[in-house]
């Protein structure tokens, strides 16, 4: 077990280094630089500013400087948000993205599992069909389209929720729903399939023969096995929710790191975009590791190797 973790950790460092290198050279390969704004300062001034930020040095030197900074955990100051260091920006944004992600996940699980179970029990009925149609629509529609409908409906026509911004929980309901909806749809389908598999098994028939109520059979016996596909989906699902928030954060003006990710690349904010890339890489890697660990515990046949 410890051996396994140590190995995975070593792989993570290697992965981070490769991702760092690719991102560094990609960022520098695209035209433009962090100092390009509407107005250019006179060339003399621009040169002095570039010198200050080491942008005049050869590329390999810049690479080594930034690599050194990242290794020590210091990403340096942001170019565009000049009053902050990259770490400050990320620390302020991460909890907000996390809050949005958790709510979206809770909504996705609650809606998805309920809908999937109902569908499985009512198989072939109108409830099943309408839910699966909804689920298909949910998977097919990108979240920004859902967001447009939701805003029109619950902000403009029926003013129940605020249009955008950050504040209390009412600010998070719509974005979390829009972010979670495609995942809820996916989970609903997975649950339905899993449950249908389980419900035809012999031990369920035995439970029915014992005279248990159908609710007890569902929650006590069928759910455990029926939800296995959902669990294995959680790893990529969580990573998806996190990266999916880029668009949602922009539409709902949520100050999480998704917006920073996009804007820093557009602004050629070399330091901030590198910080975002590193954080996202680490997150996705850790999520996958956790899922791998969970597998071995759920399925006795999987060995940690």
């Amino acid at each position, binding site marked *: 077990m410890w051996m396994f973790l140590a190995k995975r950790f070593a792989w993570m460092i290697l992965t981070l280094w490769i991702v760092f290198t690719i991102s560094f050279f990609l960022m520098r390969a*695209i*035209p*433009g630089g962090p*100092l*390009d*704004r509407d*107005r*250019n*300062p*006179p*060339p*003399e*001034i*621009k040169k*002095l*500013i570039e*010198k*200050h930020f080491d942008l005049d040095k050869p590329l390999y030197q810049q690479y080594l400087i930034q690599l050194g900074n990242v290794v020590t955990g210091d990403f340096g100051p942001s170019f*565009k*948000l*000049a*009053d*902050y260091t990259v770490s400050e920006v990320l620390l*302020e*944004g991460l*909890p907000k993205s*996390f*809050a*949005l992600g*958790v709510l979206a996940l*809770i909504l996705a*699980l609650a809606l998805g599992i309920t809908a999937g179970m109902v569908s499985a029990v009512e198989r072939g009925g109108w409830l099943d069909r309408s839910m699966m149609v909804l689920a298909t629509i949910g998977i097919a529609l990108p979240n920004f389209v859902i967001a447009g409908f939701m*805003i029109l409906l619950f*902000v*403009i026509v029926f*003013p129940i929720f*605020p*249009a*955008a*911004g*950050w*504040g*209390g*929980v009412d*600010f*998070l309901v719509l974005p979390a729903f829009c972010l979670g909806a495609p995942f809820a749809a996916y989970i609903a389908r997975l649950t339905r399939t899993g449950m249908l598999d389980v419900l035809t098994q012999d031990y369920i028939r035995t439970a029915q023969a014992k005279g248990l109520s159908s609710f007890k059979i569902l929650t006590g016996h069928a759910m455990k096995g029926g939800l296995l596909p959902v669990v294995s989906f959680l790893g990529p699902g969580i990573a998806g929710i996190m990266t999916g928030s880029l668009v949602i954060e*922009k*539409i*709902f*003006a949520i*100050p999480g790191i998704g*917006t*920073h990710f996009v804007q820093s690349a*557009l*602004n*050629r904010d070399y330091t901030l975009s590198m910080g975002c890339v590193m954080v996202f890489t680490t997150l996705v890697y850790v999520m996958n590791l956790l899922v791998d660990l*969970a597998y071995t*515990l*759920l399925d*006795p046949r999987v060995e940690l190797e």
Partner: protein
Amino acid sequence: MKRDRIRNMIALGFVAVLFVGGIFAISGATLPQADFSFVNPTEIESIDPKKVSGVPEGRVLRLVLEGLTVADPKTLEPLPGMAESWDISEDGRTYTFHIRDDARWSDGSRVTAHDFYYSWKRFLTPDPPAKYSNLLWQVVNGKAYNTLKLKDFSKVGIKAPNDRDFVVQFEHPVAYFLDLTSFYPLFPVHKQTVERHPQDWYKPEYFVGNGPFLLAVRSIRDRLRVVKNPNYWDAKNVKLQTIDVLAVEDRVTALNLYLTGTVDWITDIPIHVVTDLKERPDFQHEQYLGNYFYRINLENPDETKRKFLGDVRVRKALYFALNRKQICKQVTKAGEVPARSIVPPGLPGYEGPKLPDYDPKKAKELFDAALADLGMSKPPPLTILYNTSDAHRDIAEVLQSQWRKALGIEIRLDNQEWGSYMAAMETRQYDIARGGWIGDYSDPNTFLDLWRTGDGNNHTGYSDKEYDDLIGAAGAEKDPAKRLKILAKAEQRVLDAMIVLPIYYYVTKNMIRPWVKGWYHNNQDMHYPKFIWVDKHLRALSAKD
């Protein structure tokens, strides 16, 4: 058995994380609504006057800091700010500002001439220099000090002989200097705080300002809240207690916030709803000191294109073939005026030249003559470069079809996001590129000096000694009327060269609620929150409807 227990623990742990995370997510508190809120279309770069260069930063800086003068909210004439009065020497080269006795920093200490001396010295010090530092290049030795050619600041024409007097000496008279003294890069900073907390002085915990408001909350890409500063010299005339500045990138989101009453003012709108919004009385669209144009590259790396676009008749033909009225009427639709000059109208005392109007017949004549002389049977295909935006694309499409129809040029559209677009212009990797310029101050010079040889914003490769000399001569001219005449001559010259194809003059696109008072339209779309107040009665009434 053991495995089962661990499995349950993991499931439990997962639920616990979700639960705690959920509680955390819904525990965020909402700040009470501010007296007045508005949307700034992007997160500001900084509140350090030395680091800023954009309009969004100006909106925030005017809240928490104040320069020597402020601009009249209607006419933009200089009004007393930190300086209660000023004297200008006979030769127009020396300005002496008298700092008011009751000028205070928010910590209660006095604002003195030495504060301005410190701040302007800091502004010019190349460690690195401010992006806007050429604002003070016309000060005696300002440029030399700023570009490391002079080490001794005492030789620079910025002096504070006592607490009250702040003296600025110029190489030449600078006619628009009293516009610059209210311009945000030249605002002062609080010396003690900057020196004690060099990394943190702009955070709300430390920030000391001299403006009408104090920095209270600053949350990245969310909001910046300011509260009234009781130590401000004119505090009795400041009516708002709290102001929220929301950083919202998406224009549709900003409009939603406005329509649902979260904010009272947005500074821009999504282009596709112009027609609907134009019907509303709270959509404010009026003359704005800005020009939308296309640049023509004279240093094209492709030799055929360079020869082709290097012929002034071709450039003129491109201009005459453009029906700019159609663009204003069918594309931009917010009341923009077709442009026939580089300097927009509305600058007091300036009578600039005007180009003739749309003339497709003349365009064709010029074009055919040029083609014949160049020995070309048909024009080379050209590319229009623009930065990604629906509005720019729509306009570029009209140009494409008009030029194809009138002159038979094959046009390709090339949209790039901002950084790549800027890089392409700087390295002259384009044929024709969309551009725009918003005036920094109320003077034709702000629209003309960028076409000088080698200017960082020229981007066309246009280099004309006579033009450079005219701009230089205008800078040295003492008589204001004569100076404007020289500038008009310069504008005529750059228009004749036709390196810029004017399309239209900008209009402002504000949405502002009727209960916001003391907010006036002006030529630079510049608004001082110290003059703004909210008619709460009117607001309450409209909330009831």
